[in-house]
């Protein structure tokens, strides 16, 4: 059997938990997360790296998991949308999306939350232009983006006042 057809062991930290997963080396990280790790919050929108529904954080960077081969995730620290739900209260971004209509059908929402949170971690006081740019890799068909920006701005305001 050729090398690429044999499964390998991929060990990574997913949402603070070390997981050891078996996968083909060129399997998409998106599928490994959804099927092997059972983390179905990350969505497939296009499978070609255009829509951002599959966005995750890998070693701190926002990436499209549909384009990451499993072998590249070995040794990585990964955060998915499920990584936002292990705390007692919703994150500022999540809460803002709820109150400000940032989600309608919800299919883009996990990726948007990842992208917004990644932005705020790097830049806690972004301008609206910076928010637009940071979210430009996440497509949304329902909201027209307006309330997503409002949600992110609200999250900034909330975080500003949190100790």
């Amino acid at each position, binding site marked *: 059997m050729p090398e690429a057809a044999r499964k390998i062991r991929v060990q990574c930290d997913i949402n603070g938990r070390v997981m050891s997963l078996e996968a083909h080396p060129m399997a998409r990280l998106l599928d490994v997360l959804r099927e092997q790790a059972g983390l179905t919050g990350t969505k497939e929108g296009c499978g070609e790296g255009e829509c951002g529904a599959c966005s995750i954080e890998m070693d701190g960077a926002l990436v499209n998991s549909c384009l990451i081969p499993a072998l590249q995730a070995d040794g990585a620290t990964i955060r998915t949308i499920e990584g936002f739900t292990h705390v007692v209260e919703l994150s500022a971004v999540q809460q803002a999306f709820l109150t400000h209509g940032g989600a*309608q059908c919800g299919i883009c929402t996990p990726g948007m939350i990842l992208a917004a949170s990644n932005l705020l971690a790097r830049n806690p006081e972004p301008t609206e232009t910076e928010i637009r740019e940071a979210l430009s890799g996440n497509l949304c068909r329902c909201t*027209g*983006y307006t309330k997503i920006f409002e949600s992110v701005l609200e999250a900034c305001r909330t975080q500003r006042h949190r100790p």
Partner: protein
Amino acid sequence: MREKSPGVVHVELRLVEPGAQRRQQLADAAAPRRGREHDRRLVSVDDRRQLSVRAEALGLDCEQIEILQPDTSLVPNSGPTVASRTTMIVGKLVETAALVIRKSLMDAGFLKQGYSANDFASACRQYTDKFGALQSLVKYQHPGDLHWDDGKYQGDAYGAYAWAVYVAEVSVDMRTAEVRVEDFVAVQEVGKVINPILAAGQIEGGVAQGIGFALYENVVWQEGRMVNGQMTNYIMPTSMDVPPIRVFFEELPYARGPAGAKGIGELPLDGTAPAIANAIAHATGADIRQIPVTPEKLMEMLEGVHA
């Protein structure tokens, strides 16, 4: 597993579709059973809008009404997935069903005018203790004064129209023929806004889709097949392509809508592209007869103008 506190009323609605044109709703009002789990397996196809319609009709707080998530293993076939006038049609049925429940409670002598939310919960409890489950069945009926001849396509197809004015401001790069939507104002008269955030969200989403319709979403056909069916070559608006969309509502209540509401499902998609096309024409003098107005197409049109 949670216990419900006394005073919380569970209204469960099931949407039944026995025929293509008719909708029925079954509304159960069940009083909370102290110390026991309430049966949550009855499902509802309602959402936040229906919740507030129901709450307002009954004079309750939204917190006192529980929405159950729809589950296709439990909900009967309700026909196609459409949503043009869900708030208006289904919302009205929900409102009516809720009022039937209230009337049943009053007729049974358990509820009086000017009741409080606690009075309502108590009345439900008394009713179900004495008579069992309280149900109301409401069926959609086509208004008798609306006559539509489907054979001749004559008459009044609809009881109401929602109205809108859309204004687009665009800038056109005269060298590259790229168009940017710089500002967009959407005013619509919708009878009654049930949920301001969702209503504005619907308009904003539709306008964004209209921007794509007007400028980016070119469908390439080859021998009857669409050949650009991937996100990489079918271009839809990103966050960089949509200006701040300013939304305003006017309200002239429609008697047959819940609290006067009309539908706004497809409304925002209708006027957006024409507004943008007219703005491009205004900016360039080109006669815009086709969308999307891609840079290639606009460049041809501009050559026609300056020829």
